[in-house]
């Protein structure tokens, strides 16, 4: 039943097509249920595929399913084909799983939005693209998914397109991603130039050839280190764009202009992890490119630290989580750089659970707060929203790395392998773990504890919430409220928990955040299911050779840092006013976004303007017009032509042809 993998991809496509054509007529909530059923069906199909694969011996869990030949030109032969192996299985399981939960949540969240059906069109197209990205059997087909998720992200960030900030943020996200995509494209050119193919099997298989457990094993081959470095560095540029790492992370925060379920699904749980998937996929290439591994680990560490410092100073509940996502993605890249791909993917999964949970719970909070996102104007919500609070707390403890929540296990595993690679990177990573606990506790304290500050904030018009983030001018409410003829989402009275379609996903994700670590207890010998499942696909993964004593010591140190951060955050932020802890350069994200914006709208724009209107308009055009003038073709003659004497020229062409014929006749005759 490996063929179920076809269904995994086909169902979301079908849901997309159905809603695209009939969505307007299906209306709310039917369009939502169509989309949700497609996602759930896809999840079931993924489970069937997975169980089928588990039935096989570990070194035969691979299948290549061809759909059709996509781009065949001479030596380039690219199929639209699926590659089912432990890596892609892991990805599709958690992508469809988390996605199903978020589809369900969206039915409640998008209630009464005029773009309800459009939302699910995008959502299913996104799921389809994401599945193609991870299931494709070659780089180019993966790139189709890669760009597809980028486009859906564009469409969903700009979902409330009437808001100028949303439109700008959408464009910024797409363009920033495209900068990374140039790296991906050129990497593909190099791969084709070197290997003569873009298929994963032909490219990566030659590199793991002869290895006893390599699933792709083909004929043994090798690659010069410089080529491998160039290819992987270029691919990493693509990953940096998609996964929002330094220096291309700037789009992710603005992406919070989109509806909250999108922030959860695309900008936290799935799409932004595509970069981590890609680098794990090309692990055999990374084996030949040590420089790239170092760059990946360093960029990951830097992003983790930098984004955590920024997250600690944000007032907007979603922006805080967005920077947190950048930071957590940094951890995943640390693992990839250290050669510990399985634990990178482990952290990717646990992060998907708890970050989706946090975002969805934040969405419930935003709903209850009549679309206010400023945490300084919240407080004391625990009493009014008990279920949401419990779920948020589960997410908080998980991301803070508190035992026994999922985040503890995965973050610990990542830090272990980083310790083995380099102690300085480990130290930054461990400190960042403490910082993470601090900013998340700050968030919990501001939102759920202390005094209820929202009652005085209520009378203010929606959207007036002032965020401390300077680069993007304004962060309005989450919902489109300028829609005339529709009642603004009103939540008169006290805040309360959300309806069941929104609560059920919260509860499921909360359970996953609590127990999710169980898929890979690498600390306890034989319970490392995920690592063992993935090991055939990573024959070159760096073995962790730390003694269990070292591991325990490292865990205790990290845990102590996390608990410290946790306590500090809770204690400090029970009252909301501590401006000294929020320096401007952190609130404004180290000014990087401001520098980029200033460059783009300053010198770059001036240069483009000069090219367009001075060089092109005056110089080039002026030159040719001048030439025409000196040839006396302008002036009177041109004016004559303008009044309709072109006939003369038509005759001219005729006369010229006759002269030409006469000349040739003469030549031939002589």
């Amino acid at each position, binding site marked *: 039943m490996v063929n179920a993998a076809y269904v995994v991809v086909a169902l979301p496509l079908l849901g997309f097509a159905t809603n695209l054509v009939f969505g307007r007529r299906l209306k709310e909530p039917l369009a939502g249920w169509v989309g949700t059923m497609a996602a759930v069906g896809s999840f079931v199909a993924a489970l069937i595929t997975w169980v089928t694969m588990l039935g096989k011996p570990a070194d035969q869990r691979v299948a290549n399913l061809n759909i059709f030949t996509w781009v065949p030109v001479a030596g380039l032969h690219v199929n639209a084909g699926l590659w089912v192996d432990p890596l892609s299985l892991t990805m599709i399981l958690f992508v469809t799983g988390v996605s199903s939960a978020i589809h369900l949540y969206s039915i409640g969240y998008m209630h009464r939005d005029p773009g309800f059906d459009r939302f699910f069109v995008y959502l299913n197209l996104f799921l389809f693209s994401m599945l193609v990205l991870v299931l494709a059997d070659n780089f180019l087909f993966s790139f189709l998914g890669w*760009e597809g998720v980028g486009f859906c992200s564009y469409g969903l960030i700009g979902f409330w397109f009437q808001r100028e900030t949303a439109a700008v943020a959408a464009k910024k996200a797409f363009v920033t991603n495209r900068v990374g995509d140039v790296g991906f494209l050129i990497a593909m050119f190099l791969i084709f130039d070197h290997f003569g193919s873009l298929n994963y099997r032909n490219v990566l298989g030659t590199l793991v050839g002869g290895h006893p457990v390599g699933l792709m094993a083909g004929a043994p081959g090798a690659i010069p280190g410089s080529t491998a470095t160039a290819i992987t560095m270029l691919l990493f540029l693509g990953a940096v764009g998609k996964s929002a790492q330094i220096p291309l992370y700037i789009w992710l925060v603005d992406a919070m202009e989109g509806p909250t379920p999108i922030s959860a699904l695309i900008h936290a749980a799935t799409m932004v992890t595509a970069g981590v998937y890609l680098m794990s996929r090309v692990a055999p290439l990374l084996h030949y490119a040590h420089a790239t591994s170092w760059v990946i680990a360093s960029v990951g560490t830097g992003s983790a630290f930098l984004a955590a410092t920024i997250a600690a100073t944000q007032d907007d509940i979603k922006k805080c989580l967005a920077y947190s996502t950048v930071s957590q993605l940094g951890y995943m890249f640390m693992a990839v750089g250290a050669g510990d791909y399985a634990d990178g993917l482990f952290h990717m999964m646990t992060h998907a659970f708890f970050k989706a949970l946090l975002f969805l719970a934040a969405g419930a909070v935003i709903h209850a707060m009549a679309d206010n996102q400023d945490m300084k104007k919240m407080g004391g919500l625990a009493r009014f929203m008990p279920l949401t609070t419990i779920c948020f707390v589960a997410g908080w403890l998980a991301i803070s790395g508190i035992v026994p929540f999922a985040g503890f296990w995965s973050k610990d595993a990542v830090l272990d392998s980083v310790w083995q690679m380099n102690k300085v990177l480990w130290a930054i990573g461990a400190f960042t773990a403490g910082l993470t606990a601090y900013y998340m506790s700050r968030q919990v304290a501001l939102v759920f504890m202390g005094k209820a500050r929202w009652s005085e904030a209520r009378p203010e018009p929606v959207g007036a919430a002032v965020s401390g983030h300077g680069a993007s001018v304004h962060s309005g409410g989450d919902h489109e409220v300028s829609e005339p003829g529709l009642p603004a989402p009103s939540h008169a009275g006290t805040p309360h928990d959300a309806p069941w379609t929104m609560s059920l996903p919260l509860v499921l994700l909360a359970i996953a955040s609590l127990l999710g670590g169980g898929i890979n207890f690498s600390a306890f010998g034989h319970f490392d299911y995920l690592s063992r499942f993935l090991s055939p696909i990573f024959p070159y993964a760096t073995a962790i050779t730390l003694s269990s004593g070292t591991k325990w010591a490292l865990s205790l140190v990290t845990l102590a840092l996390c608990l410290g951060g946790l306590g500090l955050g809770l204690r400090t932020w029970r009252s909301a006013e501590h401006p000294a802890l929020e320096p401007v350069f952190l609130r404004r994200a180290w000014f990087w976004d401001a520098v980029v914006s200033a460059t783009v709208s300053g010198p770059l724009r001036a240069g483009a303007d000069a090219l367009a209107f001075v060089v092109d308009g005056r110089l080039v055009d002026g030159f040719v017009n001048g030439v025409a003038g000196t040839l006396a073709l302008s002036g009177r003659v041109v004016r004559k032509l303008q009044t309709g004497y072109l006939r003369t*020229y038509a005759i001219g062409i005729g006369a010229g042809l006759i002269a030409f014929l006469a000349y040739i006749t003469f030549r031939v005759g002589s």
Partner: protein
Amino acid sequence: MGWAIDVIILLPLGAALALVTLPRAGSASLSRPLALGVAAIEFAFAIWVAVAFKTGNAHAGFQFTTRQSWFGPLGISWYVGVDGISLFLVAVTALLFPIAMASPPVRNSPRAFYGWMLLLESACMATFLSLDAFLFFIAFEVTLVPGYFLIVGGEGPRRAYAATKFFLFTFAGSAFLFVGIIFTYLLVQGHEPHGTVDSFNIVALARGTVNLPVTDQDLLLVAFGIAFAVKMPLVPFHTWMPDAYSEAPTGVSMVLAGVLFKLGAYGILRWGIFLFPLAAVQLAPLALTLGVIGVIWGSVVAAMQKDLKRLVAYGSLAGVGFIVVGLFGFTSQGITGGILEMVNHTLVTGALFLLVGMVWERRRTYAFSQLGGLQRATPILGWVFMVVILADLGLPGLNGFIGEFLVLIGTFITHRWWAVVATSGAVLGAVYLLWAYQRVFHGPAQAVNATLKDMTWAERVAVAPLLAAIIFIGVYPQPVLSRMEPAVDHLVAHIEAADPGFKIPAKARGHGTFVVPKDQVVAVLGASGPAPGGAGSLKTASAKRGAK
């Protein structure tokens, strides 16, 4: 079956003549149905040819050929036919014309408008299909006249200026083509030991040009190149283009940008690279540089425009840049991608001008400052516009990506750094297109923009075929690529044979053999032993080159 090609060229010409002879009184009501009917029949023929076209390596040469001696003593003949290179250009031309004609004339009388359009279609078809240099030149020149009168029929205040500029620019370029063709003919005659009866025949010319001294080849290619570069247009020969496109009425902009544009790109491949492969390899760095400049220049200048129509016009400049980058990579992928980009460009730019026209119909302005927030009132127009824009910026799954990717990956193999720089077009394209979309469709809708009417059914029917082709080629390009490839592979082999110092890796050249295209008339080069212009003369050419 050759008559199908004759019909494709002559049917619109005959219809145009018939329109002229119609009595003035009845012409107003009759001309539109007649013209659209003829264009539809034309399209049916083009589709039939595309379907019946034989694929596979054995059919790399011209198909559906007819040949009729026309001006015997000079060896000028009515020699037409189609191969994988021209096949889809003919098909999309036949697709675009009826759609363009469906949009109403502005200042021209219906009779004049449809008459000129039909004449233009005939001339474009003849340009793509003629295999005789003389016939090609006539067809290429004839496009100017209807082009001029159609631009003058526009609504803009500067339309006369624009039309004149268009005419003078391309006419000046044609002078070079004229000289180039004469000299090619004379020089080939001079070097041909046996003389020949059909020396304007493309295959005969190609057989002869490889014997010419290398400097002659270079100069001739430059002469041809200038004419085609103006027509395409390549930076810095482009300044007639934004004026002409933005002043012309919608339907005319569609065919100007969608079809006339391609005559130059097609010309440089068919008559430039094919006749002078050695010179093409030598001059490739120059051509590639101009192409890359076009990609960047076009995108950057487009981004800064304050007017939607001029933005689309400058955007075409970037598209042409990509085409040139692909053609001068001399690999199967690059050239196939270049031809596919020509096809794509016809579809996408045609569709864009059509949609821009729809915006004009509703709002009577192209200025970004007056537009904004249109998506609210016109969601379907917004969706369609988005799909076309995505095709233009190269989103995988739509046609633009396939062409762009093939261009870049093909040229990367032989001319790496040009391809790398051109790849930046992926970012620049996204910038100017998405910004344009944002300024037209996103944001709050001003008073008038909030109450516009969405696409009518007639408009949906007009744009649907273009949209279908855009998606089909993006998802399943194989039928298109497999028809193009044999001809392209042979062309690549021809180029490689012309310059022994230029090696193309096997993965980038397919299964072509060292011949000028197989043809039922002309002997295969090298295969027929003592044939003039065989391997021996190739050596002389390269020896001369070495001595230089």
